[in-house]
């Protein structure tokens, strides 16, 4: 039986999350002390060697991102921690903040040191407002102990962390929208370029990282035995946090070595399907992710294998839906989410979502015709091609994959 591991989650339950002393007793801030003896380029190279890809969903090469951020020449640079995890069925970042807040702070300070930033901003969703006191306390204590502020560890490095709150807008997980929200505006995404890495928050070069990406940094720097590199293979080295939910017996966050099969995750870790139901579909990576049938169970959870099976890692969510929910009802609920969350400024996303909703209603009423299906395919293609931001580009992913995996749902009878 396959088991979850604890590399990124190594500190869970091991210390008093309200006390920096307790964190330091288990080796807290040792990674930062080691980091300041290295160059930023070396730290970025260590991350690149572990082939870590951004854990928010875009899976951009993190070592490369940090190396690029370091190379930008500017007087003031910014690190942002994106803690706005809004993808339904995604709650791994919540676990990381709740159970190991100091590790996140340490990861951010190391990020700041690596790219020569002076300020770090944590943008946490309003829905996690109950975690604000915990993070504020961690930031305050880190400052008292001299890990934040001026001349950190006597290295002439100055860095501060600011905690900002979202206010219930899924689209603010998108980089440019997040930045506008941090600047005190409504979080509507903007056109790129200019890219965030050149002109982000307050027009400063900005490096945005997901909570889990930052949480890997400290354990990785201290990993002298190369434990992390011993997990997984190929392009998917190391471990990953997944949040499993839906119709499973024991939903939760699990740290898996890359290469664990979907079956092991769903049955051994999440306790299998509730009651005597069977799997209707599994969605990967949140509402903007693609869906698969139970045929995917024996696929190893890696970037490449999931891609071959027609889905992606995305946010790390694994949503298991049993036979009590039809594919169509699943799609309609997902659709309603995107209709609500579309910011409405670009036409393909705003109108596309509306039209998909109407056609799905026809499908549910069984009054659809061939031209509706043709229109649906056209809208889906158009949204992916011409929407302003990632929301519109990915809102139709579930629908698109449903058309491929469950073609009978769209048959005209």
């Amino acid at each position: 039986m396959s088991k979850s591991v604890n590399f990124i989650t190594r500190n869970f339950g091991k210390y008093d999350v309200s006390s920096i002393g307790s964190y330091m007793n288990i080796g807290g801030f040792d990674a930062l002390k080691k980091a300041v003896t290295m160059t930023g380029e070396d730290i970025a190279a260590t991350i690149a060697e572990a082939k870590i890809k951004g854990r928010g969903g875009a899976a951009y090469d993190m070592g490369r991102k940090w190396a690029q951020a370091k190379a930008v020449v500017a007087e003031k640079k910014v690190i942002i921690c994106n803690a706005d995890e809004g993808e339904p069925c995604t709650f791994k970042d919540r676990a990381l903040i709740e159970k190991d807040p100091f590790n996140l702070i340490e990861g951010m300070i190391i990020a700041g040191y690596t790219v020569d930033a002076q300020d770090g901003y944590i943008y946490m969703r309003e829905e996690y407002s109950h975690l604000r006191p915990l993070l504020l306390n961690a930031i305050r204590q880190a400052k008292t102990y001299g890990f934040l502020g001026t001349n950190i560890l006597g290295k002439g490095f100055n860095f501060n962390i600011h905690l900002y709150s979202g206010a219930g807008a899924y689209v603010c997980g998108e980089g440019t929208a997040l930045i506008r929200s941090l600047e005190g505006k409504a979080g509507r995404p903007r056109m790129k370029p200019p890219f965030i890495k050149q002109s982000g928050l307050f027009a400063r070069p900005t490096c945005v990282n997901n909570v889990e990406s930052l949480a890997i940094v400290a354990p990785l720097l201290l990993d002298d035995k190369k434990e992390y590199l011993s997990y997984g293979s190929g392009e998917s080295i190391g471990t990953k946090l997944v949040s499993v939910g839906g119709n499973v017996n024991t939903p939760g966050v699990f740290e898996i070595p890359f290469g664990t099969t979907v079956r092991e995750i769903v049955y051994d870790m999440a306790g299998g399907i509730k009651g005597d139901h069977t799997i209707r579909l599994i969605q990967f990576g949140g509402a903007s992710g693609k869906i698969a049938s139970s045929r995917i169970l024996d696929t190893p959870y890696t970037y490449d294998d999931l891609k071959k099976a027609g889905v992606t890692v995305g946010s790390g969510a694994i949503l298991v839906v049993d036979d009590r929910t039809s594919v169509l009802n699943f799609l309609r609920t997902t659709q309603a989410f995107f209709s609500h969350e579309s910011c409405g400024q670009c036409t393909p996303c705003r109108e596309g979502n509306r039209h998909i909703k109407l056609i799905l209603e026809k499908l549910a009423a069984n009054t659809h015709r061939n031209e509706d299906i043709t229109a649906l395919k056209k809208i889906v293609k158009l949204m992916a091609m011409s929407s302003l931001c990632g929301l519109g580009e990915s809102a139709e992913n579930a629908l698109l994959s449903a058309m491929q995996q469950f073609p009978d749902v769209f048959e005209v009878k």
Partner: protein
Amino acid sequence: MLTAQKQDHILSKELSAKIDLVLASHEYDNTQIVGILLDVQDLIDEHYIPEAIAYYLSEKLDLKITVIYDCISFYSSLSEKPRAKYPIQICNSIVCSINDNDSVFTIFKELLGIELNEVTYDGRFTLESVPCFGACDVAPAVRINGTVYGHLDSRGKIENLLNKLL
């Protein structure tokens, strides 16, 4: 500023002092307007931003009133309409939906005698349908003033929850 003066009674001396404390904790930094609005909204019993307060913030922070209302209308967590002492936010997203949140909606409506977005006669409760708040491991769930209540899979549990708030 006429509208603001009409509603001056809402903005008592005591309340404006509390708002000033919120502003101070955000260093009167108008880029922190979203966080300020969230904190101020928590000071109001009905959990919303009254117009008089929006104008007050506009003056104190040297921000155009349109910027403030752009934020209030854009972000779902902010409201310009009075809500209730306990806004009950029921998750309508997929994980709660496949864990029978239909029953959660129905039972709350029956027990409180109100429909979605209506307020009980005593101003205590309102029912809101909201997207995923990341409590999928305890679905079906609701969120009330920042606290999550999960595993609401029976009428008894929902009754207990309401009794706790009464």
